[in-house]
C-alpha cells in the first residue's frame, strides 16, 4: 500500500504494508536511524517521534496511521548545522550521556515547549515521563528543557 505523509517538512510516500511499525518504515525505508528501538513494545520512549506535533511511540504505531499526517524525527529538528534551542540546551547542560534516549527525549520536550512557554518542573517531568533514561537521573535533562524554554520564550518576545 502507498502511504503518503509529510516527513520532516517534505511530502513523501512509502510503499509498504500499513501494519509495519512506523519505526521500521522510518529506519529502514527512509534510513532515518536517529529514531531508536529500545524495547519494541512502547515502554521506553526511545522511538518517540512527533505525529502532528504529538509524541508517539513509533515502535507500536502502524505506519498506516501516519497517512496524511506530519511526522517529525530528530533528523528534522536542526537546520543544517543550526541546532534547535532544545538540542543546544541539552549539550550546554550536560544532559547527554549514552545518548540512546536523547532523540526521543528531545522530541518529547519539543512537543511540550510548542504548547507551553514557561513549563514548571512538574510539567517537564510529566512531558518526559514516557521517555526512560538510564544514565542521567533526569536532573540535567529537566534543567536543559527549562533552559530551552527560556531561550525559546526569549525568541518569541
Amino acid at each position, binding site marked *: 500500500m502507498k502511504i503518503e505523509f509529510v516527513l520532516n517538512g517534505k511530502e513523501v510516500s512509502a510503499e509498504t504494508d500499513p501494519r509495519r511499525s512506523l519505526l521500521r518504515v522510518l529506519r529502514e525505508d527512509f534510513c532515518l*536511524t536517529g529514531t531508536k528501538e529500545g524495547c519494541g513494545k512502547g515502554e521506553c520512549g526511545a522511538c518517540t517521534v512527533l505525529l502532528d506535533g504529538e509524541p508517539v511511540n513509533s515502535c507500536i504505531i502502524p505506519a498506516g496511521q501516519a497517512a496524511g499526517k506530519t511526522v517529525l524525527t530528530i533528523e528534522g529538528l536542526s537546520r543544517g548545522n543550526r541546532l534547535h534551542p532544545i538540542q543546544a540546551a541539552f549539550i550546554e547542560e550536560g544532559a547527554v550521556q549514552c545518548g540512546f534516549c536523547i532523540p526521543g527525549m528531545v522530541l518529547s520536550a519539543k512537543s511540550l515547549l510548542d504548547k507551553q512557554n514557561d513549563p514548571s518542573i512538574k510539567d517537564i517531568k510529566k512531558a518526559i*515521563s514516557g521517555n526512560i533514561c538510564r544514565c542521567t537521573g533526569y536532573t540535567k535533562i529537566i534543567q536543559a528543557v527549562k533552559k530551552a524554554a527560556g531561550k525559546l520564550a526569549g525568541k518569541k518576545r
Partner: protein
Amino acid sequence: MEIVGKSLPRKDALDKVTGRARFIDDYTRKDLLHASTVRSPKPHIRIISVDKKEALSLPGVFGVYTHKDIPGDNRVPFVFQDYPFLAEKDALFAGQPIALVAADSRERAQEAASKVKIKYEELPALFDPLEALKPESRKIYGKDNIFRSYRIRKGNINKGFDEADVIVGRTYTTNYQVHGYLEPQGMLAEPGNEGSVVVYGSMQCPFYVLDAVAAVLGIPQSRVRIVQATTGGAFGGKEDVPSIVAGHAALLAYLTKRPVKLIYSREEDFQSMSKRHPGWVNIRYGARRDGKITACQVKYVLDGGAFSTLSPIVLWRGTVHSAGPYDIPNVFVDSYAVATHKVPSGAYRGFGQPQVSFANESLIDELASELGMDPLDLRLKNAVKTGSSTITGQTVGESCGLTEVMTKVAKKGFWKKSWSQPEKKKGTVRRGIGMASSIYGVALGAEGQFLEKSTAHVQIYKDGSVTVAVGNTEMGQGAKTVLSQIASEALGINFEKVDVIESDTTRIPDSGPTVASRTTVMCGNAILDGCRILRERIDPVARELLGIRFREKMKTSQGFFVSEKNPKKKIAVEEVIKKCYSRRVPMSVQGFFRVEGTTFDRETGLGDAYFAYTFSTMLAEVEVNTGTGEVTVLRLVSGHDIGKVVNPQLAEGQIQGGAVQGLGYGLLENLVMEKGIILNPNFTGYIMPTSMDVPDEIEPVIAEYGCKVGPYGAKGLGEPPLICAAPALANAIFNATGIRVRDLPVIPEKIVLEELRKK
C-alpha cells in the same frame, strides 16, 4: 590548570542530540543476514536432539547451527572456562543458547528459531544458593557448587565481640538488578580478507570480545578486528556478556560467509544477559557504649547462576568492602559465590558492593538505634580517616575525605534539623531522613592486578591537532571528553584540537577493561606518560623559537607557549609543532602506566587491596504513606571525595545518574523469577525510575582530596554514586515509619505488610 577542572562540553554530544551517532542497529550491509538464537526453555535439561528440518524449510532461512559447527573452542574465555557459546549435552539455565539461525530478515530468523525443535529430558534444578551450598545438594559446579570463596581474618573476632557492650546482627537480602541500558545487546560481524573477521557492536571491553571471537573461530587474534559502535549504556552489562553475542555473530559470519547482524530483543536481553547478583548477607557489629565499633562479622553469599562468568571477582570486591567505611580492629568474613540453575549473574555498577553496603549501612542504623545515638554521629565516630586501617588492614592514605563528605552532605540535607527518632512520628503520611556511606576501592585491586596496566598512543599531526588512542571505551560516562581534557592539559594544545579515536582493536592498544571506575586514572596516567615524552621533545624547540634559556620557566596557555618571566614572549603551539615536523622530531608515542604494590593474602584476607579509595555519603529524605506503602523521594544529596575533578559537569552527571539507578535498586526494580524463569522481562513489569520517580534535583557534593597516583590527583567515580542509595533510602523509610525492611527492593507491599504486622 586551564583545561582540567572545567566543565567542557562532551565530545560526542552533538552527534547524539542530532541523531547522527551510529549505534549498532544503525549499521547495515547490502548482503546482510539477520540472526536469532534458540534457547533452552527450561532451567535444567539434557539435550537429546536438535531438529532443524522445519526451520530450514522456511523461506529466507540460510542455516541453523549448533555447537557441532564451531570450528574453534566452544568455551567462552571468561575467568573460568565453564560457559559454552552453545550448549552441548546439558543446558543449565532457561535462556541458555543452544542453536543459532541466520535468515534474510530479522522476522524470518526469529520465526525459524521458534521452529527449531529441541528434544530434551527435563532434569531437577536448584534455585536457592543456600540450598546449593548444602553438601547433599546436586552439583552444578565442581564438588561443592562454589565458584569462589574468600575469607578475611583481621585482629581477633572473639576479643572484638568481648569488648563490645552492644552486639547487633541481622540478615539482609537483595534481589537481582537488571542493567536496563536503553540499547539492547547487539553485534554485526562480517568476513574479511584472508580468513579474517570484523565485528562491530555495543560493548565495554573490545579486547574481551577479541579473545572470544578468536577462540570460537580458532583463528589468530591478529585476524580479528573488533570495532565498538556508539554504545547505548552498559553499567557492567556490556563488560563480559558481549563476548557471547559477538562470538555468535562472528560464528555465523564465518559459517555463512556473509555479514550477519544479531540484535537482541528487550525480552531476550532480560532473559539471557547478566544481572546484579542476588545477595544474602548475615552481618554482626559489636560496639562499645560510646559507639566505637570493635568487631564485625560477615557471611556473604552471592547467587552466581549457572556459570561463573565474573562471579569470582564480583565476590572479591564485595568481600573486601563488607564491613563498611569504618575503622574496625577485628573483622571476620566468609564469602561464597554459588552456582544455581539460573541465568548467570555478572558485573553491574558497584560489582558486589551494593549488596553488602545495603547490609552494613542498614545495620549501622540499627546499631545507632540500639545505642540511642544519632546515626550520623555513629558514622562520624567510626569513619576511616588518613592513617586508619581498612577491613584488609591497609593503612588509609592521604586522599581520604570521608569525614568532610559526611559533614557536608549532612549540612546540605539539613540532617541535624530534620532527624528525629521515628517513634515520635505520627499520621499515615510521614517524613523521614536517612543516610549511608561507603568506601570504594578504585580500579581492579589486588585480585585483578594482572590486568592493572594501561597503554595510550598519542599522536600530534602537522597542524597541531592530536589523536589519543586507548583501549578503554566511551559508553556514555564521558571517557572521551575527560581523557581529551587530560591530554589537552598535558600538551598545552587546545581541547578542541584533541580527540580520542573510536575503539578499533587494530588501532588502539589494550588498556585493560573499561570497568571498576578505572578509566580516568588508568588511561589518564598512560596518556600523561605519552604527553610527557612528547613535551620533552617539543619544549626545547619551543624555547629555541621563543629565544629563552633552558632554565627559564615556560608555560602553555590558550594554545601558546609563553615565557613566564616575559609573557609577551609567546608562540602558537601550531608553529612549534610545524617546526618539530620540519626537524623530523617523532610526533607519535606510546605512553604506559602500571600499578604496583597492591596485595591480598587469600589465607588471611589481608593486604593493600587497592591503590586508592573513593569515599561517599548519600542522604535521602522521603515521604512514606504507611497505608499504601508508597514512598516519595523528596531529596537526594550525594557526596563524593573523588580527588581532583576533571570535568565537574560530567562528574555531576555520574553522581545524579548513579543515585537514580540506586533509587531503582532500592525501591522499584523487582525482577520476579519463578523456578528459574523470569516472569517480568520487560519495562512494564520491571519498573525502572522515570522522571516522575525522582526528586526535582539531585544535589551533588564533591570533595577533592587529591590522590598522588591519579592523573592531576583524580580518583574513580563511575560506580560509587549508586552504592549508597538503597541503604540511605531504607534508613529514611525506617526513620519515617519505624519499619525496617531488610530485603531489597523496598516495594510498597513490604512496607504495608510490616505496618500491618506492627498493629
